[in-house]
């Protein structure tokens, strides 16, 4: 995370997994404290965000958040911001304690990211569909200035239904900045239910490719795959989209794939359960889970089927 142009050494994937676990703890704790917010889509993005901030990918400087030559991370799916706040706090942008102020009056930690409030936030989002355009603007600005800053934009899968995403994708496919990387958190759910029941996205890679992007599909919870894909993305020399297959609510068993937790914070009873699951940070065990990419996808599909039946819960806003 230092201001080094090249990461010193290959990232320590086991250490990253441990950090991911701690970030998950911060997420459930801060959402419980706020008594509102979006656990599902925060938890599904943990590995991607952890790898970016702590895997030597993002060149940034917590001491100097406005360092002009930094890489940018734009969280287009703004409701997932707890994962970014956790990462920023752990990286030193602000005290970890401040996480408790999430969503409270006068806090710098707004419910959706706001540029100019918490240091490290690069764009105001929360109205879905806008981040890739902003990222494209940043990428082209860097190119104009001959800076090699890279811009990473994290999108939701439901968010990919917004037309503006495809405007930006098409425009980037035309201008071909070598420093723009989109990542889709493909957790198979949106607010009202399963993506495939509302507006399916498949074939998703073909959509991005038809817009002129190079794509790669990964298991978004396999830290090694995440790190590799991100490293590859910075070398591609053209716009790249990483489609990260993930599980909504990942890491908290009762939230995994239960879309009721899209926008409902853990209750007083749920918090200790969630935390105790995230305590068992047995690296071996986590390793085994993270490697099970086929398993992850199976589970996502199973949960899609399940949700088709039980749509009594969910939403919460």
């Amino acid at each position, binding site marked *: 995370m230092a201001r080094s142009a090249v990461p010193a050494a290959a990232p320590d994937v086991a250490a990253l997994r441990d950090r991911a676990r701690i970030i998950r703890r911060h997420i459930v704790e801060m959402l419980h404290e706020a008594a509102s917010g979006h656990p599902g889509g925060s938890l599904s993005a943990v590995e991607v965000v952890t790898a970016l901030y702590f895997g030597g990918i993002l060149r940034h400087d917590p001491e100097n958040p406005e360092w002009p030559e930094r890489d940018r991370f734009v969280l287009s799916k703004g409701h997932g911001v707890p994962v970014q706040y956790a990462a920023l706090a752990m990286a030193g942008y602000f005290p970890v304690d401040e996480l408790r102020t999430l969503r409270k009056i006068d806090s710098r930690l707004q419910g*959706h990211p706001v540029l100019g409030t918490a240091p490290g936030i690069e764009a105001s989002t929360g109205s879905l569909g806008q981040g890739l355009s902003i990222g494209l603007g940043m990428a082209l600005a860097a190119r104009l200035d001959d800076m090699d800053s890279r811009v990473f934009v994290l999108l939701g899968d*439901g968010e990919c239904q917004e037309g503006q995403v495809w405007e930006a994708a098409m425009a980037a496919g035309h201008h071909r900045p070598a420093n723009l990387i989109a990542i889709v958190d493909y957790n198979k759910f949106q607010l009202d239910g399963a993506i495939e029941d*509302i507006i399916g996205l498949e074939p998703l890679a073909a959509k991005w490719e038809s817009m002129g992007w190079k794509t790669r599909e990964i298991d978004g919870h396999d830290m090694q795959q995440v790190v590799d894909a991100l490293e590859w993305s910075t070398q591609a020399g053209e716009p790249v989209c990483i489609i990260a297959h993930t599980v909504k609510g990942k890491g908290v068993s009762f939230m995994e794939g239960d879309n009721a937790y899209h926008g409902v914070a853990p209750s007083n009873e749920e918090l200790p359960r969630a935390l105790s699951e995230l305590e068992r940070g047995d690296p071996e065990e986590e390793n085994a889970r993270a490697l099970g990419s086929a398993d992850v996808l199976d589970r996502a599909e199973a949960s899609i089927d399940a949700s088709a039946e039980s749509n009594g819960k969910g939403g919460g806003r």
Partner: protein
Amino acid sequence: MNHLYPGRTFGKATRDAYGEALRDLGRDHEEIVVLDADLAKSTKSATFGEAFPDRFFNVGIQEANLVGMAGGMASSGKVPFISSFAAFVILKGFDQLRMAVSYPKLNVKVIGSHGGISIGEDGASQQSVEDVALACALPDFVVCVPSDEHQMRAVVKAAFEHHGPVYIRSGRPKAPLVYDTTPEFAFGKAATLRDGSDLTIIANGLLVAAALIAAERLAEDGIEARVVDMACVKPLDEDAVRSAAEDTGAIVVAEEHLLHGGLGARVAQAVATSHPVPMEFVGLDDTYAESGDPAGLMEKYGLTWKEVDAAARRVLSRRTAGAAR
């Protein structure tokens, strides 16, 4: 939010009343179709969707397409009720509302839920503070901001019976009751909830209950305020505005909206062209709000009975000063 409305009973959120009223209408009217953009559980259009799945379309996170589809359905004889958060359906669908609904005067009802800042913790990106300004900029649209669950039911019925575009703002939190039962309601007609001769408070949405409380406090000091529920912002009840000006000589307008382009601006123009009197405005002054609990936000951004009360005293002292000159 109870402490902000001392002495008032709370009913359902207007969004809940909306969902129920829509489902009830759906029973008798096959031509009603309902569309939502991945917020059906929040806007409560899901209440209709569960009852009539064949006539319910969740179009995903595509507000522009949502509006366009509704236009196409309306021109084929359907009566679409479409919803999302006010901040998305009006702000991302504006040009589509213009071209596919307002300009051809089609029979589409638009419901913007989670209006205002009282939605709380989600913060500014989800809080609509400008939906009324935009909706009123759509010619031929009727624009309403109901104050409680009972009035919402009346507004939904009126919207269905009116052939043409209608915008209704609904709210997220439970709303203090203003009415005991479904009131009489017609577009372009205000409801006088309390009479008074010293000044008139014109309000809509949550500010109506705040206005009633303010009026009680003012009465304790011998100031008699008329309170008018102007749920229908467009067309405006110009007769009610004129009488307020003529009879009471001072007007306060209060709303959960930017000062620009909302109820206050429209009343100000009506007052200026009929019977100019001193006015004060309660609303958001060129600012978004932020994350926080609904009550805390309403207090921080000055949208409680206290600001209405203060505005009333201000406008009265201005009137007196004017008369003295």
